[in-house]
């Protein structure tokens, strides 16, 4: 874990390879190629960035040894290609395809999260992330992680991070008389301006007397007032005869006079809602967002058991909770400092991605270096099948893969070579069962039993990205810099 403090005192805590790379000022073209590969990895699958960097570095190192021995880079590159195909075959063999149960999802999320935050928090976040994804998951529909809203509150500690089965909006009612809490509330989401607008064309405002001016002003106002009245009408209709409340959530503005009218009717009115929240609200509470107040019926209304306001410093939060069947939920991150909030947020993002990946692939790969050991073994056997000098490239690739278990071992305080020997020994005797490193004991362990899983697509993409970049870098024989100023 690194804690970066800038000259101005800004703090950043991270362990994510991609973020760290972006914090560095990279000048060298090779390094920037690797950084880009890493960014691509992060964009596409959301994890495995550090492994990517490690692997590319190690592949180049292994290749360098071969080149010193006089092997042509192109042959190594060719070997890498063979090896990559083979490694992906191995990957397909070791992957565990099964229906993703909640338990499995927890395991894969936990594996991802434990590398980002301390274990107590990781366990907490695992539950939160898995429940969030399961809540928004609908059969036969692609999973849209945007439907998990992530809200931040600088309050309490990171362990108070929780899943809200509903929505948390980062604004509140702007009128002192509006209700702060609504139970059994109808929710109207809309995108209609309820504030005084200037006219579309340039216009003047001419009047002869004060009374005439008054009249003109009222006429202008009336347009907006009619809109507000329509909402009030609907409220009166649906709330007649019961104790239900009414909440209006508008994507556009609501001016003080309209707010006042709403407050008199005991309607909670929220203005300038986030565009994306309009979509989420419809999913969470039911109903649909309206773009005009004409011909509104009860069907467009959503319903929430409880809507309440929470004020924290200068920010107001509005919680929309107790929903019947929310398809959109909110993860409410708490933390004492801005940088811990950020750290938790990054972790949650990775956790959600890991779960999504697992669901999309419906497959998992045993973690803890098990895949790399298996692939190494397979590649060493495969080496002899490869004709010509390209086999040295295959070997280099195989050796490079071992950097993952080695790093795991050394990061946990064990001797890398020692652990490697143990793992390979164990793998030979296991008869094809995956063998990974138990970082608490330094012994071999079956990752499936220990519940350590990685995403299939992360590994697959990593193999792809690494071999392509390494290959490209290898066959570059000279770097030429263009530009006049360089020639000075």
């Amino acid at each position, binding site marked *: *874990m*690194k*804690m*970066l*403090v*800038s*000259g*101005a*005192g*800004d*703090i950043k*805590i991270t*362990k994510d390879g991609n973020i760290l790379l*972006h914090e560095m*000022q990279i*000048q060298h*073209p090779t390094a*920037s*190629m690797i*950084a*880009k590969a890493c*960014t691509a990895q992060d964009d596409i699958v959301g994890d495995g960035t550090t492994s990517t960097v490690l692997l590319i570095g190690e592949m180049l190192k292994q290749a360098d040894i071969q080149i010193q021995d006089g092997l042509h880079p192109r042959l190594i590159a060719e070997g890498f290609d063979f090896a990559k195909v083979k490694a992906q075959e191995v990957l397909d063999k070791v992957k565990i395809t099964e229906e993703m149960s909640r338990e499995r999802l927890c395991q894969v999320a936990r594996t991802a999260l434990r590398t980002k*935050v*301390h*274990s*107590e*928090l990781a366990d907490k976040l695992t539950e939160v992330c898995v429940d969030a994804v399961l809540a928004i998951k609908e059969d036969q529909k692609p999973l849209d992680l945007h439907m998990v809203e992530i809200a931040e509150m600088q309050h309490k500690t*990171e362990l108070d991070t929780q899943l809200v089965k509903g929505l948390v909006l*980062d*604004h509140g009612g*702007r009128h002192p008389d509006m209700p702060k809490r609504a139970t059994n509330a109808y929710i109207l989401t809309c995108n209609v*301006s309820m*504030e005084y*607008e*200037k006219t*579309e064309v*340039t216009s003047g405002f001419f009047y002869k007397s004060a009374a005439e001016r008054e009249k003109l002003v009222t006429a202008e106002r009336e347009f907006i007032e009619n809109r507000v009245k329509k909402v009030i009408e609907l409220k009166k209709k649906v709330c007649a005869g019961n104790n239900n409340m009414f909440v209006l959530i508008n994507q556009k*503005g609501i*001016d*003080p006079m309209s707010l006042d009218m709403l407050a008199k009717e005991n309607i909670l009115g929220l*203005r*300038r809602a*986030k*565009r*994306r929240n309009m979509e989420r609200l419809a999913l969470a509470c039911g109903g649909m967002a309206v773009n005009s107040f004409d011909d509104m019926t009860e069907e467009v209304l959503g319903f929430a058991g409880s809507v309440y306001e929470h004020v924290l*410093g*200068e920010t107001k939060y509005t919680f929309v909770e107790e929903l019947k069947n929310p398809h959109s939920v909110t993860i409410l991150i708490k933390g*004492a*400092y*801005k*940088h*811990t909030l950020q*750290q*938790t947020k990054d972790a949650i993002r990775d956790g959600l991605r890991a779960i999504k990946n697992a669901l999309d692939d419906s497959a998992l790969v045993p973690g803890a270096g098990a895949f790399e050991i298996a692939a190494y073994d397979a590649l060493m056997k495969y080496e002899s099948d490869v004709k010509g000098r390209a086999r040295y490239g295959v070997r280099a690739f195989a050796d490079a893969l071992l950097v993952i278990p080695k790093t795991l071992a050394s990061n946990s305080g064990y001797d890398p070579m020692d652990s490697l020997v143990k793992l390979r020994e164990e793998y030979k005797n296991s008869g094809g069962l995956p063998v990974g490193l138990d970082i608490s004991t330094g012994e071999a362990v079956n990752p499936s039993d220990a519940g350590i899983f990685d995403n299939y697509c992360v590994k697959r993409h990593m193999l792809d990205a690494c071999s392509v970049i390494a290959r490209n870098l290898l066959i570059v024989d000279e770097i030429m*810099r*263009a*530009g*006049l*100023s*360089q020639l000075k």
Partner: protein
Amino acid sequence: MDMLGSRPPAATAWLTRQAPDEPGPWLGLESRLTLETLQRYISKRQETYTPRLLCIDVKGSLCSLSSRGSLYSPPHPEPSTSEAAWDGPVDLIQQLPEVKNEYLMDLEQEDARFYRAADEDKDICIDEVPEAPFALTQKIYDLTKSVSVWSDFLRPHLHPSSIYLLNDTSFKTGRATSNSDEGIWGFPSGSAFFQRDEVEEEVSDRIRLMAESCNSLQGFQVLSNVHDGMGGVCYGVLQHLADEYGSKDSITFATTPSHLAPITLQARTLMQANILQSYTELIKLSSVFIPLNLRKHCWDFQASCVTFPNLVLLENNAYIASSVLAAFIDTASLVYRSRVSPMSLSCVVDFLTPARRNVVGGSLALPLGLSSNQGMLEWLRQGYKPQLVSLSAGCNFTVEPISELLIIRGISPSRLTRADTKLPPGVHYNSASQLYSDFLQECRIPPSERMVTSVSDPLKLSPPFPSIISGSFTEDGFANSFGNVAAAGIIKSAPSEAGLHQSGGMTPLLHDLLTVAEKLDISKVPALLEEGFDKDGWSGVVEDLRTITLNYSLNNVDIDSSDDS
């Protein structure tokens, strides 16, 4: 970029009191890259911290300023690794603190005193900080050399959500060509960058939160550098504003730094292309577009700078140049943000933009030149006039004037006339605006459509405003006739005038732009291609620019004939 809504007593107080600091965040001096977007709203009730400002800058150009602003956090809490949510070892990697200049050190000391005094209530709003103690306003700083970025002379504390850093280095790394050395990135990269999900979401969210807290949002004031990719970012922001807040106006001040003179041809072309495209796109999207440039030509980087009768300007110093532009913006924007008789933004916009002409020239007179024992009426009658100097790339706003807005500040009612002046019966002047507009009308100086506003607060010139006024002036900026020169040359404030002009003077500027745009062959300049300019896009730009220019020609033949020649 910067903007406003309606006006709140408290918020404007903040603005006026802090006036001299405005140069800072507004203009963003440029060393590496600059401040681009400020957003300011003013609301009737001060429910959130005002000014509502969103400032977008490139990462790494804040120097000693924390990206979280300094409003709520006492400076530099000692970082501790225990804050990391991690049970393994944590590496603490700490950069050396940035070196602060003399001015910032003094500010810091002042803050430290304040924090000690208000130890119990840390959340106190900085609005309540006692007025700067004597020492600070009396002292003269020479910051011309030590200032490299805008945060080096920033006085107000910024709200934690004010600053948004473009948190990516992708436009800096991996560039092999020469333009990367001069740190210029292109308009297309800027707008592409803004379109990235996380950037757009975060920026629009912050704007939304500020808009949410406004009771009657009038519009947005946008301030942006347009010579580099920030023009593209600004374009993205304006597009968002047009999309989400369609009925609100936006006033865009587009600055091009006068101190930058790229050496290589490639960099120069890139900068020109940026300026051209930014102008075109921003004119299309803003209600009023005000180009600001101290040079007399908008893309000739060697052209001479405009000169003010009583100001000493170092041409190549960004800090000084920005202070002049800031003085202009601070004065000109008074028309819609002053506490007394403000015009609504939509009135200003309608007034300045007849017949789809929305490029407006700006001008400034600083100091006014009125002497300390004269009344304004006498002064005008003696044939003097505020000497407005054009700040819009040397546009001559007296050509075919159509409408103009003049803002005079710093003339208190007692200074309008001398006690012994005899006014015609029934005539009584309460404000400088009344007097001045009557005078101008009497003299039949065009244009006939004119609005004059006055504010009695002068432009404050205390630090960090550089001491650029030369000649003998009193402490409050009046020309001195008796020899009571300001002690040690400190001029604390000065009356000034700013003008916004809609005139035929903008036509040559647009014509020039169009000619250059037509001549530029994108496909022949690798630097442009690398930055994402493409031929089709460019012909679109030229086409748009032609349409804009058409609004300015008296008859369309103008354009055709220039094409033939």
